[in-house]
């Protein structure tokens, strides 16, 4: 693709508009989005940053606290458990993406009725997360859940598995529900990438005797790296958007088995009315996500624009 970066040809610029007028106009186009992100993202993050260095509660005057809250976090093993669970949820995104890539490849093959398959698989995304949590809380139920019922009829298991009440199975169950909801969205993004892989490349490689797997790794994978990166970023944001799923399905239980940072922030702030330590956790979580995104960006070689054209 041609590099879009090149500024407008010198000659044309002088006739139409002085460059400053042009950049001013571009900033006006950016203004509404920037204002909204400023109001509802940037200012709250700064508010949290300031708060994390104070002893603050809705009714008492604020006083400077220095690094106390961060120090408390260091000794707070619930925080480490929540951090560990959050990293597991983020690490589970590639599993979902791999599944979605498989489905995208299948749907991309020219078979009849592929639109119907595509719609069915995407159907779970418009569902409300709270509704998904209710459905899956029932599916995983120990006594009457569908999964235990199926497992017992095919006698895969003699005693029903208490999915949401066992320390080992709770987090995987939440991740399964999350993948079930996000599968369709990942598939659509990866399908976008696959569509742009030119068909001739595959034919040429096939003629040269390259096996399917060889062609997949050498041609398809490199070319859809931008969509993989976009899917991973959205998968990573699941650590934020699956708040409703964890809160309704298990409430962070049993014990702290499914406590993720974002439910811990909500509990610290609104149940224990400790907004200052919740702010500290927010800042740590924000820095964590930024670093993971930067690392992923570096690893996949694309530059900052997730959907950059180069």
């Amino acid at each position, binding site marked *: 693709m*041609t590099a879009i970066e090149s500024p*407008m040809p010198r000659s044309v610029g002088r006739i139409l508009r002085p460059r400053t007028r042009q*950049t001013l106009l*571009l*900033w006006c*186009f*950016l203004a*509404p989005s920037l204002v*909204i*992100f400023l109001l*509802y*993202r*940037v*200012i*709250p*993050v700064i*508010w*949290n940053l300031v708060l994390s260095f104070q002893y603050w509660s809705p009714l008492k005057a604020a006083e400077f606290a220095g690094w106390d809250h961060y120090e408390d976090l260091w000794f707070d093993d619930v925080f480490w458990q929540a951090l560990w669970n959050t990293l597991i949820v983020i690490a589970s995104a590639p599993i979902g993406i791999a599944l979605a890539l498989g489905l995208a490849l299948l*749907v991309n*093959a020219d*078979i009849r009725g592929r639109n119907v398959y595509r719609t069915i698989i*995407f*159907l*779970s995304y*418009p569902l*409300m*997360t709270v*509704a998904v949590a*209710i*459905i899956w809380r*029932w599916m995983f*139920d120990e*006594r*009457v859940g*569908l999964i235990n*019922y199926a497992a017992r009829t095919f006698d895969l298991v003699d005693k029903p598995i208490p999915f949401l009440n066992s320390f080992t199975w709770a987090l995987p169950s939440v991740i399964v529900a999350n993948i079930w909801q996000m599968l369709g969205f990942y598939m*659509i*993004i990866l*399908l*976008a*990438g696959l*569509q742009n892989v030119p068909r001739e490349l595959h034919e040429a490689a096939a003629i040269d005797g390259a096996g399917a797997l060889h062609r997949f790794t050498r041609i398809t994978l490199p*070319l859809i790296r931008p969509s993989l990166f*976009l899917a991973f970023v*959205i998968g990573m944001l699941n650590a*934020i958007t699956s*708040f*409703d799923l964890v809160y309704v399905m298990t409430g962070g239980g049993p014990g702290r088995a499914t406590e993720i940072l974002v439910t811990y*922030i*909500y509990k610290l*702030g609104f149940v224990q009315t400790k907004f200052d330590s*919740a702010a500290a956790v*927010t800042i740590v*979580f924000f820095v964590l996500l930024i670093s993971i*995104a930067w690392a992923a960006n570096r690893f996949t070689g694309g530059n*900052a*624009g*997730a*959907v950059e*054209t180069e």
Partner: protein
Amino acid sequence: MMGRYPRWPIHFALIGAGIVMLVPFYWVLKTSVSGENIYAYPPSIVPRHIHPFFYIDVWYSIPFARYFLNSVAVSIIAVVCNVAFNAMAGYALTHGFRGKNAVMLLFLSCMMVPFQATIIPAYLITGKLGLLDSWLGLALPQCSTIICIFVFKSSFDAVPRSLIDAARIDGLPEWRIIWHIMLPLSRSAIATNVILAFIWSWNNFLWPLIMTRSADMQTLPLGLARFLSYQEDTTGALYAFCIMVLAPGLVLFLMAQKEFIQGLTSGATKG
């Protein structure tokens, strides 16, 4: 790509995936229609006596029409602003200018902000704007989303440069270029944005919960919370409500899914 391979393993795998995706839907629909207690064991595959009375129950026990109107109004405001602002931002990002990388980094980092932590400052800001307990206040946080800005950016990049330069030579002002050249070519990116913005604003739960104070400004998802509350049991009414909240999103998606899928496929990422 898979020309020579037999078709049936593909169909077999896709049908399997389809079943896994559809079983929860089917169960919710079955329970909302037949209403035998979902905790009855063994669960019956086919619903026994089918009756629509749970839907009527939901319609009357919460002001469904009013919640529906609020949800639709907020979603329309959110979708319209979303498309307008994202298109403008996407267009601006196709041009090189001094602060471009800084803006890109800002957008990317804004995606990483956990919403649960921004409730109180967001509420205070909306309060200062005087938009508390109003449709505009409910829709404002969703008026622009970063993923859709990038979708617009790549679909605008796909428009050949020569077209734009020719229009500029003819002396077309900037916004006319967008209106007559850029937008028609990225109709699918618009469809993507409409569907995603609608889904996200329709299913928004925490922001309306905190923001609305009077009962008649609440949106549909808040009605679900009411069913979850004093009717903690799992009879058909709760599932009938899930279906009624889900239906509009599905109808819109099925109607616009041709452009939507095309939007994500052709415009999103130019290889």
